[in-house]
């Protein structure tokens, strides 16, 4: 793609990538120009005020067999990163180092490669293309830009602020990952497709041995934020010294492959069922086995308390009748009369 040589400061001539929009537009911080002839107004592409030196290009593509959510995530990343390029799906038969050649052809020096296995698990490779390090992650909990709960919005191609956890500085592998993220995700200054305002922030946090990615829009200067999306969780698997190959520099011991995870769940369920069956069998056995008759009561003499023998007393005369004298109560009327008197 030939970089168009735009005349700096020449606003009269319509630049190549002008967008026709129906409302009044304004260039960045310059006077507004409305074409009186046509009702449509051209929104000039953001004119870089400076020279674009940080030539960082990211190739974002995937293998075959990705599902819709991954595709949307890729599209979202491409919208957020104006320094990205797209490519067709790679065949799974090719080895991974072919990607290096693809990157070279496209003149990119970073690569985000999404790989799907079993149509269920999504792996992400982030690599620095010719010689640099690369890392493989398992991606989980993907939410895309299009979800209605993500209410924020940002300029397309605006430069993001990157926010990292202090944990990234503590371990060498996290430090390497931090550098990789910075170089990949930060939009270069004066990139022709970038917007000059900084209005969103990407956060990378390490919680539970995973890297959580969030994207927030900055609404007010007092740091009130709204989430734009997308959001995902990266589970580090390995870091390699070369791009898509090379010696392993770091392996994550907390990582459990999704297959093992599913297997463990299945084993747990199976163990539960087996245990229930065993208990049932035991009960059946107990019920059908020959029962012995209990002739002697083992608990017969629990409450026997040794006590002195009392001599047997025989009464020869009947007991005397007790005479109870009834109190004679006066009748009610008499009582009332007495009370009244």
């Amino acid at each position, binding site marked *: 793609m030939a970089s168009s040589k735009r005349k700096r400061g020449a606003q009269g001539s319509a630049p190549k990538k002008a967008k026709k929009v129906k409302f009044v537009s304004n260039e960045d911080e310059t006077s507004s120009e409305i074409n009186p002839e046509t009702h449509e107004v051209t929104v000039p592409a953001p004119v870089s005020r400076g020279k674009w030196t940080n030539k960082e290009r990211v190739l974002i593509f995937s293998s075959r067999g990705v599902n819709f959510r991954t595709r949307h995530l890729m599209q979202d990343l491409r919208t957020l990163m104006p320094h990205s390029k797209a490519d067709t799906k790679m065949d799974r038969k090719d080895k991974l180092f072919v990607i290096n050649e693809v990157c070279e052809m496209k003149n990119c020096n970073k690569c985000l490669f999404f790989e799907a296995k079993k149509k269920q698990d999504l792996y992400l490779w982030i690599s620095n293309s010719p010689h640099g390090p690369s890392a493989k992650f398992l991606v989980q909990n993907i939410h895309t830009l299009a979800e209605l709960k993500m209410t924020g919005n940002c300029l397309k191609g605006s430069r993001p602020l990157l926010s990292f956890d202090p944990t990234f500085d503590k371990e060498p592998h996290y430090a390497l990952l931090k550098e990789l993220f910075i170089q990949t995700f930060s939009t270069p200054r004066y990139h022709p497709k970038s917007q000059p305002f900084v209005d969103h922030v990407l956060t990378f946090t390490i919680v539970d041995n995973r890297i959580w990615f969030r994207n927030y829009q900055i609404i007010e200067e007092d740091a009130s934020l709204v989430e734009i999306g997308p959001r995902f969780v990266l589970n580090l698997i390995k870091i390699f010294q070369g791009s898509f190959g090379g010696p392993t520099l770091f392996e994550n011991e907390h990582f459990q492959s999704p297959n093992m995870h599913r297997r463990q769940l299945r084993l747990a369920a199976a163990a539960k069922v087996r245990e229930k069956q065993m208990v049932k069998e035991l009960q059946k056995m107990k019920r059908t086995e020959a029962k012995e008759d209990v002739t002697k009561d083992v608990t017969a003499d629990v409450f026997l308390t040794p006590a002195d023998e009392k001599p047997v007393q025989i009464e020869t005369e009947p007991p005397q009748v007790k005479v109870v004298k009834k109190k004679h109560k006066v009748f009610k009327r008499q009582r*009332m009369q007495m009370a009244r008197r």
Partner: protein
Amino acid sequence: MIIDNPTMDAEEEHPEPGQDSEEEEDEEQSELSDGELQEAFARGLLKPGMNVMIDKPKKCANSQEGLKQCLADFRRDLPWVERLDLTNLPAENVLVTPEGKEPKTTKAEINPDNDFEREMFFYRQAQATVLQALPLLNKHSIATKRPDDYFAEMAKSDQQMQKIRTKLIAKQTIIERSEKAKQLREQRKFGKKVQIEVMQKRQKEKKAMMSAVKKYQKGMTDKLDFLEGDKKKAGKDNPDPKKATQKRGPNSKRKFKDQKFGFGGKKSGTKWNTKESFNDVSGFRAKVAHGKGPKGAKRGNKNKRPGKTVRKKMKNRS
């Protein structure tokens, strides 16, 4: 006892990331041939007793020097303006936390399964970054506020934002409606309570009045104080202690029953055809008498036979 089995090494080369590090495998003892076991025993490696095979704990590659070297090679020392990155802890928690819970600022205290806590942590981290970054951006004269008349393409299309807006509005209306319904229900309950109280009060007053009137009629009191209302309720001076016992009147139990159930009444001889009862027109209802009572109370003959002239007309018509 850990046996470094050559067959196990071949398995480790497989790219199986999730191998249990310590397993007791009795079944795999058959892989080790008897000859090997005899050799090991001869060498004194085997001890008497139960020998189980345990895998070597899986060694995860973690070459710190390699990582540092790689980082040193890979790092590009760009000025901050190019990178715009910041590392910070979350900002102070401004929200009111429930009693007994302190705001969790350190990461070790966060429970990753508690969604709200986790998301608030991320939010506060982003906030801290923004607060720190704004002065720096101002210094480098990078704008953060978009002027009102700057229109440009947004990451989400206007259509998407419309959808979001309608959804939010719908949620809000649902909440408002439920709130209104709740309030109405409460009001109705309250109103009903008030109505019942007022009616009960009126009943009580009526009863008191009637009993006072009856008392006067029966001659128990000769004062017409009840007509004045409740003016003289408090401050009745007690009779002399000397006459107190004599002037007790009926028993307190009798008094209570009188108050509650009234004074009984005439059991028979209430309906007589006397001059008074004949002249008493209180039972006369004009509407019912003139046939203007509620319609439907008395339904006339539905199939009323029409009169002679109408019948003649009908006959002549057909």
